[in-house]
Structures are given as structure tokens and as C-alpha cells.
């Protein structure tokens, strides 16, 4: 695929609707396995996961609109440097925006806000989509991918927060006798929960394929 991608994402035919495509068919986390750093690092609570997802969505929508607008002016050799410069500008805006909205969230997300620049997801979509498609479609793609990313992060964050702290959005679920499974808040828990979600989707897909086969036979 593109030379900026860190590894080759599986080839899954894209949905014709750019918004729906990112949301499900080519979900950035569960299908494309892109943008892993924030996915694993920031999902130790639902609140952090949602804020990280929204910050990334904002960056993607703004910068893809701009990239798509100037796509005919960018010489091919320096396109990646240009994408990075546009992304870095949007990220700087988000960095100050989050700081102005909520200091606790800013502290929790920490270095991962500036790191949206070098998130493989943002660059990969700029290269694969926004650099070639018209403005509205590119922004819709950014929105769909961003929401898909947010949903995936929230699902991961929910598993880790419920098992690791016994809370959901800070509300205690299991009463005082619950012994939290702290491992899920620590780094290994991030790897394990993502692996479990991937296994779950693989199993679901296989079950669906088997049913189709049984129906056909």
C-alpha cells in the first residue's frame, strides 16, 4: 500500500459511503490495526478513551479538509512532509484546546496529544484518501475514521475500567466487596484486552461464515 504505513493493513474492500466505511468496514483499530499507541496507552478509563478519540477526530477532519483542498498544489515528492506539517498545525490547536477545556484530561492524555502527529492512522488516511479525494468526501472519511477510532477506544476502555477498577465512567458497579483486577489497568492489560476483542471479532466472523455456508448447503 502506501509507503508511510507502518505495516500493510489487510486489504478489505472499502464501503462506498466514506463515513460508514471508517465506522465499521475498515475500522481503524479492529480491522486495520492502526494507531496502536493511543489505543493501548490511553484506554485505562472510558473518559480518557472518549476524549482521546474526539481529539483525534478533530485533527483528522480539519487536516483532511485542508489537505484535500491543496492536494493539486502539493508536489508528489514532498507530499508526506506537507501532510505532516498540516497535521502538526491541527495537533497544536487541539493541544491548546484540550488545555483550555479541562486540565485533568490534559494531564491524563499527556504526551499522547502531540503524538497524534505521528499516529500511523492519521498519516495513513491522509496518504490513502485525503490526498486523492474531494474535500467533502475527505472530511467525511476523517469523521468516520475518527468515530470508528473513538468507538474502538471506548470499547477497550470499558473492558479495562470495569475489570480493572470496577467502575464505569467513575461510577462503582459491584459494591464494596469487589476486588479490582488491577492488571487490566496496567500495560499488560491493554495488550490482553485488545487481543481478546480481536479474537472475539475473528470468532464472530467465522461463525457468520459458517452459518452462510450451512444456509447455502
Amino acid at each position, binding site marked *: 500500500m502506501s509507503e*508511510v504505513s507502518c505495516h500493510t493493513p489487510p486489504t478489505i474492500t472499502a464501503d462506498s459511503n466514506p463515513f460508514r466505511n471508517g465506522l465499521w468496514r475498515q475500522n481503524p483499530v479492529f480491522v486495520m490495526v492502526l494507531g*496502536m499507541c493511543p489505543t493501548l496507552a490511553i484506554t485505562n478509563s472510558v473518559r480518557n478513551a472518549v476524549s482521546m478519540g474526539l481529539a483525534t477526530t478533530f485533527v483528522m477532519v480539519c487536516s483532511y479538509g485542508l489537505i484535500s483542498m491543496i492536494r493539486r498544489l502539493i508536489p508528489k515528492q514532498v507530499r508526506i*512532509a506537507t501532510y505532516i506539517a498540516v497535521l502538526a498545525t491541527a495537533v497544536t490547536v487541539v*493541544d491548546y484546546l484540550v488545555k483550555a477545556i479541562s486540565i485533568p484530561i490534559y494531564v491524563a492524555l499527556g*504526551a499522547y496529544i*502531540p503524538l497524534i502527529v505521528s499516529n500511523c492512522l492519521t*498519516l495513513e488516511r491522509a496518504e490513502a484518501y485525503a490526498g486523492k479525494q474531494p474535500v467533502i468526501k475527505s472530511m467525511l472519511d476523517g469523521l468516520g475514521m475518527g468515530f470508528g477510532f473513538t468507538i474502538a477506544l471506548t470499547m477497550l476502555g470499558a473492558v479495562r475500567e470495569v475489570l480493572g477498577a470496577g467502575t464505569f465512567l467513575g461510577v462503582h458497579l459491584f459494591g464494596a466487596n469487589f476486588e479490582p483486577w488491577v492488571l487490566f489497568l496496567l500495560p*499488560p492489560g491493554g495488550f490482553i484486552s485488545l487481543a481478546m476483542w480481536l*479474537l472475539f471479532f475473528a470468532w464472530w466472523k467465522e461463525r457468520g461464515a459458517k452459518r452462510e455456508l450451512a444456509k447455502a448447503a
Partner: protein
Amino acid sequence: MKESLTHIFLDAFLINNFVLCVFLGMCSFLGLSGKFATAWRMGVSVMFVITVSGALSFAVNLLLVRFHAEYLRIIVYIVIIAATVQLTEMFIKKVSPALFRELGVYLPLITTNCAVLAVPLFQTSRGYNFVQSTVFSIAASGGYCAALVLLSLVREHVELSDVPSLARGTAMTLVLAAILSLAFMGFGGMGNGG
């Protein structure tokens, strides 16, 4: 900042290993750890880029602070990294064309490796001086290299065994990474002594 150099080194190399504890450089960690030969080459070139760009961004940050332009930090750092990667590419091409051919594909990918951008950001926010920053860059990138090599060795062995079809691919790699990360958590106890 009164952290000793040994403490900075151990902290970045083992206790807060960049890959397994702080989750940086995940994409290349999962994507390029399939083969030992690729993994260590990638690890070493990332080490080189991180050390050079860490030192350069330390110098540039002094300028930014001098002219009160801290808001440009993210953009300037990413430009420095892109330039360093380009320089490394040219340098390797000149010195060893054979190595360049082997590394060729992976070199441009270093720009989008978040571990590379994180080093200058962390050293700025922690207020390290020049020597501390350099030790920090070497330790952090060494930790990245070590994690990549370790995972690639484990994955080469798993290749030979019979993994259930559902878990093949990313899921298996993630489970292996989880076990490695669990092992690295054991180093957490070393943090109190420094």
C-alpha cells in the same frame, strides 16, 4: 533536576520501557517484529535517529524558548525528525550501500514512529540538561530495540508451533507482547532505589 544518570538510564531502558510500559512505537513493534534480522536492523536505525534528533531538538528548543515560540514545538520537532531520517538515509547510502539496500524500505517509516517524537517531548517536559537528554535518548531507544528483538525471537519460535486459526496474526502477537510486558513490570521495583 537531580536525577542521577544511572537512574535516567535504567528508568528509560527497563522500568518505563518505551514499548512495553509506555506504549510508544507500537505500530512498528507489532508490524516489524516478525523476523529477527529485520527487527534488530530496524532497532539500530531507530536508535541512531532518536539519538541524533534528540540532541538536535535539545539545541533547537533553547532557541524556541529564547524567542518565546514554544507553541511551534510540535511542528519544529517533527521537521527535525524528518530531516534526521533523510540525513540518516543519505549517510547510510554513502557509507554502506549494502546496508542501505537491506534497510531501504524501513527508513522512511521511522518518521511516523511515535517513539522518535516522544523522546524530544519528554526531555523538554522533564527539563533535562544536555547530558541527561543524551543518556535518556540512548536508553529509551535501546529499550525500544531490546523489546523489538525480544518479541521477534519469541515470534520466530511461535511460527513453528500450531496456533489455533482464530488467533493467528495480530491477536497472537498481542498476547505475546502482553506476556513480555508482564515480565517487564517486574523491573518496576527497581524504581525506588534511584
